[in-house]
């Protein structure tokens, strides 16, 4: 029992040490990340009804989808980077047609742990272009995510991320068409920093 407690304390102290270590990044440093992976619809709410989870041919549901994005950020402090990200997400509806989402976001990433191993915590928000068959709408969306990066050398690294995206579709004059979608993207990234 004592051994387990000691191991847990050590596990908690190691990141703390890293956090309070000298920062790896300076103001003005940049990184570019290309991210891709599956995204899972968790919840869709419209007109008071909830649809939980993805479906494969089931009524009222869309399938698992995929997302790819490219982002560029610049460090404004030693630990905080700000930039933008543009992505493309797809899911399939029951009739086989594609629901498309194009988020164009402003993004902030906080790296409390940085260096060879990193812990990026990101928040992005911005416009999102939705389209399905002959319908299209521009709305807002936002994503929070947390990940782990590993850098092979000083510049190139890979990362894995999990996040939560919220996408409200709002119509000022026709609230019957409103809906909110929650997705869970789980992605891998290729990162270049400079």
């Amino acid at each position, binding site marked *: 029992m004592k051994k387990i407690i000691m191991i847990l304390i050590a596990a908690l102290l190691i990141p703390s040490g890293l956090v309070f270590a000298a920062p790896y990044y300076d103001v003005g440093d940049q990184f570019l990340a290309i991210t891709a992976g599956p995204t899972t619809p968790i919840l869709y709410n419209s007109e008071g009804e909830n649809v939980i989870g993805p479906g494969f041919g089931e009524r009222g549901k869309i399938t698992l989808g995929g997302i790819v994005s490219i982002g560029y950020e610049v460090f404004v402090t030693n630990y905080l980077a700000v930039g933008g990200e543009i992505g493309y997400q797809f899911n399939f*509806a029951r009739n086989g047609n594609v629901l498309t989402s194009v988020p164009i976001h402003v993004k902030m990433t906080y790296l409390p742990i940085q260096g060879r191993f990193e812990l990026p915590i990101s928040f992005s928000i911005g*416009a999102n272009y939705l389209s399905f*068959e002959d*319908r299209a709408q521009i709305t807002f969306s936002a994503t929070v995510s947390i990940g782990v990066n590993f850098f092979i050398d000083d510049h190139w690294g890979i990362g894995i991320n999990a996040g939560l995206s919220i996408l409200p579709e709002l119509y000022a004059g026709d609230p*019957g*068409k409103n809906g909110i979608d929650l997705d869970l993207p789980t992605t891998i990234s290729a990162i270049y920093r400079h």
Partner: protein
Amino acid sequence: MKKALIILIAALLILLASCNDSLQGVLQAAHNATEEDKPNSAYLGTNGSSLIIIREGDVYSASDSSTGEVKYTKLLDITNQASGSRDFPFMAYGEHLYMATNTVTEAYPDGTFRFYRIRISDIQSFKDANSDNQITPADIPDSYKSSNRVTISGEKISGDNIVEFNATNNTPGKTQVLYKVEGERRSDYVDPENPSAVSDHYDDWKNRHYGVIEWTSSTSLNIKNHALVPTNSIIISDGVLKSTTDDPEIEEFKDDVNDIYIWRNGAIHKVYTGTTYYNFPMGSDGSYALLANGELYSIDYTYRSEDYDATLARHSSFTFDPYKREANYVPFFRSGNSIIGYISENGIYWREDITDTSATSSNKSIPRMLGVREDNDIIPLSFIGTNGNTEFLIMTQNNGFYVLQPTAGENGRGKMTRIQEDSGYTISEFL
């Protein structure tokens, strides 16, 4: 930086004003999408206690079996016809199945459109369907020949000019048909240097007509009572047409888009003009229901000898409607003041009395859902009949036959029962 952010946010808010003019949001439409439509199904008519239907491209009889299920027997394999020829079943009536064909034969080397009929009990294949085979050229009615808009060149006019043939909306004894005619038309060109000369310039032309196939004797089928219609018309109900695009080649239909016409006795009459209606009338002779721009209308049509009188009355009593998707409500069948309808993706609804305007929750014009839907989409196709007990038989796209009981079920909210084993219903009781 601040100004740029404010401008960006303002631009995004402006863009939030709806770009999507359809009835559903983008996410709604994606979540509500149905399976792809199954191959075309159509109800052709009855043969005794059987229904004759086109199902997945071939002709079947649907009848009751000893187990209570619906028994499907393939009568004709149409989908495997040789390319270039097409035999088209358009009506079943009495003992016969009526076909249109433009197959090239020795007698008809030009592929003239003509009709014939096959005795249903004798059908085994096309080659066997000769025991009671009458071939009648599809004559263009006399009134069309004398039309002052066109001159049909050549000596042969029977059937030769019909290049497309399609029949929908069958009722026992008659079938409405759209057909397209091509030929040559004398040009309206006038030579300014010789204005009295008759133009010898011919243009290629094509026009679409709407007629009724009737038989004048046991051996003769003819297209009767035709009328010129917009090129992209479709038949949507008994004597009802919808035009989907304008037809700049025909003066009368130059600006007609999404208009509803009622067709009677060789003439068409526009009864509703609108570019944003979503659904179409269903009903029987003289009475229809129409959904347009989210409002429900009833149309009562009375034909007089030289004119018509169509009364369009608005019924939009959705005050207490708990279902907010009334704009997708498709009036399916009207019987007096009652309407059976269908909301896309939601189910089949019954409005007991569309004239009830009482401001209470028991208002009989409120759409009430009929029973619980299965997982598969139930897309009603054809109304078959009633057994006289306020129960209706409908044929659906890919789920067989259902009996609708608008006033049965839990709390009288209606019920739908598929005809299958132990359902207690048979097809024959509705014929």
